[in-house]
Structures are given as structure tokens and as C-alpha cells.
């Protein structure tokens, strides 16, 4: 009974060298190859993204004396404002063709939070006519905000369509 000698033969040394070489090669190659093409050479990206709270579904109203009487004394506020907000409807046309038709529901269990939208649109680089319409109120059929602009997009350029009430509404940057 002898221990099997563990000294590798020259052939085993070569084999191990190759083994570690192949291991390193496979790790190295797939850590960079093949390249991943996210966009074609002549494409640009439009990102439609905003977080905007729609208007309240119902206007605030004055409570009647009877209604106030039914409330506990510490909760007798004369104005009653419903929390629920209107969903925000957004439409984007690119070169006259509809690209986005989306209704963003308000967040929160009581639907009193902001509506959020994020969509990526891949377009060919070059000049485009962008029309954006946004409605954040409950009543009526028209849109509350509109913007139409011609943009020239370089390959891989990102155009962000956002909403900022302080900047007048819909922005393209």
C-alpha cells in the first residue's frame, strides 16, 4: 500500500498550462466580446418622461351646516377637498404619425399622487417634427398643454420630453 505519487508528468504540466490558459481566455473574451449594439448607427433616442400630479377630480366645496354638524367637533373644516387626482393623458406624434398614446394613472391608494411616465422611442437620426399633447384635468375633451417643435437629432443623441409647470409645461431638451 503506497500513496499514489502526486507529482504531475510533463504532459500533465502542459495540460494544466493549457487548461488555465483556456480558462483565462474564455473569461477574458466574453468580458468584452461580442460588442453589444444598443442602437443602430443612424438612430437616435427620444425619452418621454415626466412626473406630474393631475388636477383634482372634484373642486373644493363649502360644507353645509348639516354636514358640519355630523362631523366630530375637531374635524369641522368648512372646506371639503377630494383627494383623488385626474389621470394624465399624453400623446406624442412624430412627423405626424402617432408614437405614444398613454394614460398615466395617479399613484397612491387614494389616487392622490403624481402620475409618472417613462417611454423610450427609437427614431432615425435627422430632422423630426415632434408634437406633444398633455391633459391633466378630469373634464373636457381638449388638452391642457401642447407643444410642437422641429428637432434635428444627431446619431445616438437623446432628446428628453419632460413636463415642468414652472417652465411653462412641456419641455424638449
Amino acid at each position, binding site marked *: *500500500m503506497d500513496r499514489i505519487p502526486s507529482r504531475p508528468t510533463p504532459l500533465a504540466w502542459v495540460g494544466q498550462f493549457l487548461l488555465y490558459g483556456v*480558462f483565462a481566455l474564455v473569461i477574458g473574451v466574453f*468580458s*468584452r466580446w461580442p*460588442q*453589444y449594439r*444598443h442602437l443602430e448607427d443612424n438612430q437616435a433616442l427620444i425619452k418621454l418622461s415626466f412626473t406630474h400630479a393631475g388636477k383634482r377630480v372634484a373642486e373644493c366645496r363649502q360644507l353645509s351646516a348639516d354636514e358640519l354638524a355630523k362631523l366630530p367637533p375637531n374635524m369641522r373644516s368648512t372646506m371639503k377637498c377630494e383627494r383623488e387626482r385626474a389621470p394624465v393623458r399624453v400623446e406624442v406624434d412624430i412627423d405626424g404619425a402617432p408614437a405614444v398614446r398613454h394614460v398615466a394613472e395617479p399613484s397612491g391608494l387614494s389616487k392622490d399622487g403624481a402620475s*409618472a411616465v*417613462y417611454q423610450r422611442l427609437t427614431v432615425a437620426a435627422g430632422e423630426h417634427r415632434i408634437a406633444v399633447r398633455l391633459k391633466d384635468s378630469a373634464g373636457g375633451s381638449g388638452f391642457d398643454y401642447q407643444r410642437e417643435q422641429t428637432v434635428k437629432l444627431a446619431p*445616438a443623441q437623446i432628446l428628453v420630453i419632460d413636463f415642468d409647470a414652472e417652465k411653462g409645461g412641456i419641455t424638449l431638451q
Partner: protein
Amino acid sequence: MATGSAPPARETALALWQRGERALDAVSGSALNPMRHLGALGFQCFWLLAVSGVVLYGVLDTSVAGAYRSIAELSRQPWYLGGWLRSLHRYAADAFVVFMLAHLLREWLFGRYRGFRRFSWLTGVPLLLFAFVSAIGGFWLNWDRLGQFSAIATAEWLDALPFFASPLTRNFLAVASVGDRLFSLFVFIHIGMPLLLVFGLWFHIQRLSRAAVFPPRALAVGVTLALLTLALALPVANQGAADLAIAPATVALDWWLLFVHPLMYASSAGALWLLVGATLSLLFALPWLPQPAAPAVARVDPANCNGCRRCFDDCPYAAITMVPHPNGRIARQLAQVNADLCASCGICVGSCPSATPFRSAAELATGIDMPQRPLNTLRLAMESQLAALQGDDRIVVIGCDRGARVTALEGAGVTSLSLICAGMLPPSFVEYALRAGAAGVLVTGCREGGCEFRLGALWTQQRLFGEREPRLRASVPRERIEVTWADAGDEPTLVEALNALRRRVAPVARPAQMGVRHG
């Protein structure tokens, strides 16, 4: 290798895997075969990541403006030391997931996810998540075009969940959107997740005695040198500073770590969530699927247990604890088996000093024994089988159920005994076989690094070579014993070993036989 009633596809895959293992055994020997040390190699890569990561964190400027610049400057260090270190960090991460996934695949193929292994399996699955989250987060810290691509892709994926009031992607709409606070979050993810990983790894190996958190030295050196050479030969390069006004149209993607992004863009964020959720759910559910009944666990006989603690020391799964002996003698202990942890391997039987067939009792009773294959039955079987053989060159082959089939060697002058694990063999059994008339004994079990119960073959080898208690007595003629390790399907190796033993113990070359002496 018996895996119970495994599906045919898994059996086929297992056969292919074992063929690959045997091929690599021929190159590096089973002891240094990387396919047999995948978990330990994963640990090694983790240590490499931790050490290189600490240095990299020291030089990283954790601000939006400074992150890319600080990493780029690292690559301009004299002798390219910084770039070398950074490349090593990346390649160690790649190797880590490769070893981790291969380890998962191997354990599944061998059916090692149920019964007493359920705990290790269930604590291993979340590690996949921690590892990938940490690895992907590491790309963002560099804040080059690849980091930009990965961060936005991850944000788009997370936004598919209905949890966020404001889309995470809004953090990457414009240069001004990305602030230093967001970068602090990146750092927290890349460092916090590895801490969770360490914690998870600690749980993962909790039920293993002598868990292999370092591979054999030669293997560790080989893998480290391979990664260092790779880092020097193919250094990781920056892909240009992130620019949120320009989409990274083409990136040199690290497919080992970032394959989820192309997968999402090829399908959808929802589909990727479904795939990840289904995969993790399936992995978590595996141990609960219908499975063969668990074999009986080791049973302690207080009347024969002297509390020597050898089974406690040798159990690979920490299934034995020592408790006060019920006989009330001061300081006397008794082994106690935790049925939930017991692998039913019988290694404790091989370690028990009372498990010697020389004991004169008509029915051999040991301090600890396996109810499904008690030592007394094995002794009787060996005696009767030996008696049935003819000639002066009778050989007893003792192997295990998981290794090469010892029954394949049975024939003229050869009988065999298969144990649950080679580690179940008390060394005195070998001497007993020789005294009972065997000319030689061939001991076998799974190849080094391939023992189904981790340490069985190692313990038996050490016991037979007198390096571990209970030892084979020095007076036993070693030339009449052959020890060969061979996996299932490796029966030709056994035949070779048997022939070698036969030549040694031929009647002309052998002194007078030993006689059996009970006592």
C-alpha cells in the same frame, strides 16, 4: 453515482459532467481538478475581489465628476499597477460568477439539494442575487459609457415594478439629474451587497465541518496566476466618460455579469422579471419537490459509546454533538445524532473505536452504527463470502455505493463489500479480512475531491496510512493492501489496482497467513 429517481435529462447531463470531470482528472489529477472544487474556487475569487476592492475603494473618487477621472488615473499609474489591479478585480468577478453558477449546476446534477442538504441549498440561492446585484453595481461606479448603459438599463428594469412613485430612470435623464448622493447609493450597493454576501456565505457553510473556503494551494495559485496574466494581457479599458445626452449605442459588454441587459432589450422588462422570478422560485422549490424517502440516520448505542468524540470530530456535516452520558459518570460523554443534519453516510461508524470486528461478541454491537447496514451484518457477509471462495489468493474488495462498482470485480477468488461511504470502513476491518483468510484487500471509494459525503475517502485514507484515529495497526502487512480511488464508471481503474494487488499477494510472494484472533 446513484442519484435516486432523477429525470433522464438530468442523468444524461450528469453523465456528461462526470465525463468532463474525468477528462480534467487526467490533466490535473482529481485532487486539483477545478471541477471538483467549484465552491472553494468561488470563495477564492471572493477573497481576491475583497482585497482588490479595498484598494480600489481607497483611490475611487465617489463623486459624479470625479469617479471616471479617478479610475482613468488609476490606469496611468507607473508600471500599470493600478490598471492591473482594476482588471484583476473585474476578472475575479467574472470568474466568481462562473464558479458560482458551475457550483450550482454541479450540485443540482448530483441531486444535492434535498434532505440534509436543503439548508445549504436554500441559503445558497439568495447568494446568486447578492452576487449579481453587487457585480452590476460595480459597473456604475466607474461611470463610463458602459456604466451609464448598465445603470439606465437597470433603472428601466426596476421601473417595471409598480413600487416607485417616480421612475428611477428620471435620475438619468440629464447630466444634472445624477448627483453625488446617487453615487453614494451606488457605493452602498457595491459594498453593502458583498457584506450581505459574506453573511450569506457564512450561513451557506454553517452545516459543514471543515468547509473548504480555500481551494488546494496549487489550484489557488494556478487560478490566481491565470487571472493575473489575463489582467496583464487583456487589461480592462474605460469606454469613454458617461454622457447622458448621448446614448451608448455600442458597448463592449461583460457578458458574464451584464447579460441581463441585452436579455431585457431582446424581450421586455416584464419578461425578464418573469424569468428571474421563475428561476429563483424553481431553485427555492427544488428541495420541496417529491423525493425518495430519506435513509435511516446513524444510531448511538449508549452501552457501547465511550464518549471519545471521534465521530464528533469526523462528521462532515456537524450532525453529532456530545452530551452527558446517561450512566452518570463524571465527565463521561455520549454522542448524540441530530437526525435533521445526519447524511446517513456512516463515516461516524468508521471513526468509532468500538467498531472493530475483532470484538468477540456473537453479535457485533458498536457505539454508533447504521441501522440499514450494521457492522455486524457486514462482518457476517465478509466471513461467509470469504469462506465461499476457493484458493490461496482470495481478495476482498471494499468500496462504496457512490464510487466505482465493486461488484463488477467479483469473480474467481474475488469478493466485494459495498459500504454507504468509504469513510464507513473501520481500519480494523481490513486487518480482520486478512486474518480471516484474504490474501489481499483492495479499498476503494470516490476519487479525491469527489466523495459524495465530502470527507469519507480522505478520512479512510488517513486512517489506513496511520495518520488519523482509529489507525490501521502497524503490524498489518501493507503490501497486502491496495488503496485506489475511482468514481462510478471508472471500474477499469479498479481492475488495474486489483491486478497489481494480485501480483503482490501471489502465494509464492506471500509469507504465512495471519490468523483471526477475537478479543
